[in-house]
């Protein structure tokens, strides 16, 4: 939101008594909900990676083809991509101004969605082929 430089009113007086945008709390809450989910999912994810560490291609595929590891990965990827998007959004809003902010927010959403969907597709393909 860019203020009108020709106005004699100060930025403060333009927003005074309008109250908050009434949009902040939801983002705040969703980063916490996804954080709470990611604590057990991260532990399960690291555990899974440790079991995969010394396996070759066929070993990795048969392990990831099992339901439980695949479900852990799907949950980690879905919640992680969402958490990434919300977290990077707040970083962008802090450091980038003007039109570059809109481009950065768009790129952030595209990156998180593409990465999440690519990982989902890969896990499902391993499970079902």
């Amino acid at each position: 939101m860019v203020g009108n430089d020709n106005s004699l009113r100060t930025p403060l007086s333009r927003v005074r008594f309008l109250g908050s945008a009434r949009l902040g709390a939801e983002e705040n809450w969703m980063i916490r909900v996804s954080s709470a989910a990611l604590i057990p999912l991260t532990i399960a994810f690291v555990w899974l990676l440790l079991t995969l560490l010394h396996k070759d291609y066929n070993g990795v595929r048969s392990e990831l083809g099992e339901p439980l590891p695949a479900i852990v990965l799907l949950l980690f990827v879905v919640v992680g991509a969402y958490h990434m998007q919300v977290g990077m959004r707040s970083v962008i809003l802090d450091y980038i101004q003007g039109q570059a902010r809109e481009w950065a927010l768009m790129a952030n959403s595209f990156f998180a969605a593409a990465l999440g969907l690519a990982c989902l597709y890969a896990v499902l393909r391993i499970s079902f082929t």
Partner: protein
Amino acid sequence: MAATNSTPTQPAQRPLSPHLGIYRFTLTMAMSIVHRITGVGLYVGVLLLAWFLIAASMDASAFATFSWFIQSIIGRIVLFGFTWALFHHMLGGVRHFLWDAGYGLDDPEREQLAQATLIGGLVLTIVVWIVGYIVR
């Protein structure tokens, strides 16, 4: 209001809100910055997970390329950094949950909490890597 010497075309020199340059260094401040840096690092580092999963979903030669990279010195350093960032950021999240619940905000507790998060992240990382090298 008393008249000032500044010309009307210049913006008023109002005090800005205090920022990093004016505060003395504290551990909680550094941990806040590192939490954000590890978050951005993980954001980029997840590309490695995508590479791993896509390679495993393709064929043996694609997987061999990924294996070659992750077993190289640079691959191991990147993976070590990713592991640390993951644990540090996770424990940072736990710390934020404690604060949200109203615990650990006072003077000795918040410093101890920051130290515990810092040490905990390093210890978890090293333990996981030792387990990774020993257990087969």
